[in-house]
């Protein structure tokens, strides 16, 4: 039938025409016109001016700190208003490249930065650092946010800034500690092992730690153990993607084996593989276990919920008197390379670190140490509170030069796709320490290459 043939060929023609019109056959990508990394290092003035400005910001849900800072900033600079979008950190991690490319915010909470820098999505802050005097701050504060031309972190231009810098260690329930005769924090790893065993013998769950879903919280104790056995610098080199760095080292193997011993000794709650962060926190606050590995961002919260009953200590070293190390990282915020109000955003970041009110908020709301010059104003904290304990621990880490970034931040996918499944398998007895490190290293090399 002529009619049928005509309509069929017509249909084909129309669809083909539509397709040719819609799918240009050029290869995908390369549409950002990537400003080459390393530019715009000339001194830049950071100011919000006097005309009305709306700062577009992308914050992390569940943390009141950035919102409190934004409110205070508007109080002091009424011409600045905020347009804030909030998401969970995992969502931000996944969205970061696309959001920065398509709809760049002035200020954004960032996951790990090196991949974003490679794609030319972040503004080089060296110009601001020069004019605002950030270069005079302790270098370790900014080190993690420097990215070199080859994508290695730790050196090179500054691409982000912290609202404060947080630190992790071990929180403990003082009442339960007294029950097992632990009157002061363990001084060595062996002391810590003894405390764990005593707790278990007394029928107390020694450690509740989140390790379920896509967030393997056993990475916290693992990295602390790595630092107890080996050198924090080597771990940083791995996280910073320095060439030739490996996680598969003899001391890291010792650390992983130690973690495995903790697992087989029953020091973790039996359902550690289905525990999420919220469950861990609620159980600890209800007094159901002795220890959690966590960070000082919970200090303010714990001071409120368990006033006087929480202690904090840094992971003890393997040998008595050894150096302390801790996962410690800035609460990273960056400015999109195509942000409209970059100058004002930089001014805000500087204000967070230097304004007295802002530093008060960083400590009382954020629970962590503010950024800024070494001799800057420090708010007074209540004696005996856990916030005081974490701030004091921060000073120790500074002395021992033991700040490490988190091993989960080495690449964008290493946490969800390597550490988490591997650690969950270790708990289930389906993985051994040697193979675990080997697998993670393989994934890492694969991801860094990309």
């Amino acid at each position, binding site marked *: 039938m002529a*009619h049928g043939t*005509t*309509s069929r060929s*017509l249909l084909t023609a*129309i*669809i083909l025409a*539509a*397709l040719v019109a*819609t*799918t240009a*056959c050029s*290869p*995908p*990508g*390369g549409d*950002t016109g*990537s400003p080459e990394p390393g530019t715009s290092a000339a001194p830049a003035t950071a100011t919000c001016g006097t005309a009305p400005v709306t700062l577009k910001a992308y914050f992390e849900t569940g943390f009141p700190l950035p919102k409190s800072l934004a409110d205070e900033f508007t109080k002091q600079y009424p011409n600045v208003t905020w347009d804030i979008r909030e998401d969970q950190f995992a969502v931000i*991690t*996944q*969205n970061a*490249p*696309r959001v920065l*490319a398509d709809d760049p915010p002035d200020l954004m909470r960032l996951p790990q930065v090196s*991949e974003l820098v*490679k*794609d030319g*999505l972040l503004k080089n802050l060296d110009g601001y650092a020069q004019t605002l005097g950030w270069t005079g701050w302790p270098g370790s504060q900014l080190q993690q946010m420097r990215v070199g031309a080859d994508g290695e972190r730790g050196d090179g231009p500054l691409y982000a800034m912290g609202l404060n810098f947080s630190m992790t260690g071990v929180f403990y329930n003082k009442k339960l500690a007294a029950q097992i005769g632990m009157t002061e924090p363990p001084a060595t790893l062996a002391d810590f092992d003894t405390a764990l065993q005593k707790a278990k013998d007394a029928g107390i769950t020694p450690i509740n730690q989140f390790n*379920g*879903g*896509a967030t393997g919280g056993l990475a916290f104790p693992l990295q602390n153990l790595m630092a107890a056995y080996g050198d924090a610098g080597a771990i940083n080199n791995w996280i910073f993607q320095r060439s030739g760095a490996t996680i598969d080292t003899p001391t890291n193997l010792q650390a992983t084996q130690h973690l495995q011993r903790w697992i087989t000794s029953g020091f973790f709650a*039996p*359902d*550690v*593989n*289905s*525990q999420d962060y919220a*469950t861990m926190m609620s159980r600890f606050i209800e007094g159901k276990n002795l220890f959690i590995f966590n960070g000082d961002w919970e200090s303010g919260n714990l001071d409120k919920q368990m006033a006087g009953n929480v202690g904090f200590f840094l992971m003890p070293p393997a040998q008595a008197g050894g150096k302390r190390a801790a996962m410690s990282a800035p609460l990273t915020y960056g400015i999109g390379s195509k942000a409209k109000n970059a100058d004002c955003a930089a001014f805000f970041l500087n204000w967070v670190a230097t304004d007295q009110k802002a530093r008060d908020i960083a400590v009382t709301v954020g629970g962590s140490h503010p950024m800024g010059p070494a001799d800057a104003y420090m708010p007074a904290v209540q004696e005996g509170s856990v916030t005081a304990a974490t701030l004091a621990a921060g000073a120790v880490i500074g002395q021992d030069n033991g700040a490490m970034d988190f091993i989960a931040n080495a690449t*964008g*996918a290493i946490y*969800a*796709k390597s550490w*988490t*499944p*591997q650690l*969950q*398998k270790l*708990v*289930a007895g*389906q993985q051994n320490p040697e193979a675990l490190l080997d697998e993670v290293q393989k994934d890492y090399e694969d*991801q860094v290459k*990309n």
Partner: protein
Amino acid sequence: MSAQVEGRRAGRARRPRAIWLGWLFAAPAIIMYATFVIRPLLLTVQYSLYDWNGIGASTWVGLDNYRRLLTDEDLFSSIVHAFELIVFFSGIPVLLGLFVAATIRDIAASRLAVIARTVLFLPQVIPLVAAGIMWSWLLSTTGTANELLSAVGLGDLTRAWLGDFDTALPAVGVIGAWVLVGLCTLLLLAGMSKIDPALYEAARLDGAGPVREFLSITLPSLRQEIGVCVTVTVIAALASFDIVYIATQGGPGNATMVPGLEIYYLAFSEREVGMASALAVTLVVLVLACVLPIQRLTRDGS
């Protein structure tokens, strides 16, 4: 219709114009379909041939992404998991749906049947995400499932159902089965209501019992409805994402990783858009390969 009639009346000369008029009416739908279905589909095929992080420049790699799919154990096991889920998403709902529908049909007029239908259909109204959250509470160590087990003296069996390597995938399957049983029951019930009652009467006169009736009359008459149920649920199993994402996020280890979730991780966390597209294309092909034969088998014999 009217265009055809008009065309015939106006004679051969005006026919082409009538055809164009028809296409004009169809155009909005065609354009939408081409823009939002066909174009993304073809772009996905195109992306699958590149190594691309979603932002920067891309490199042509040909079929390399597909090759990796076959050799990468984790990617391959996610596909295997999807097929295991068919048992729970498709097998259980269809069998249970048949049983429940046959039971309800017998008491069709009573109020109990109305209540049963409502209760069974309820999971359909609840968003899958809410169902996932609810079930992860039920299946947690302190959840109802474990409390019930302890109450009847089976305390030894209690465990973190979604956090255990052996039980996580079946536990996710149970959530899917719970969601889909209602849909299947309702579809099958609707199918049963159109079966001629005379058939049952004749069978009963011939001395058939309820089982014989079910096997000889109900089941064959429901061929098409069963086909629809199996098709919908098999697609739900192979393309599952939301339930798994909420309940386990693919963990523990990779025990509950399914292609839908893997595509999401590849594209947004590993930033391998090419690889993600290749897996997506493969998934489409697999779904078609499973669903088309089912369609053929369950097509009405008459």
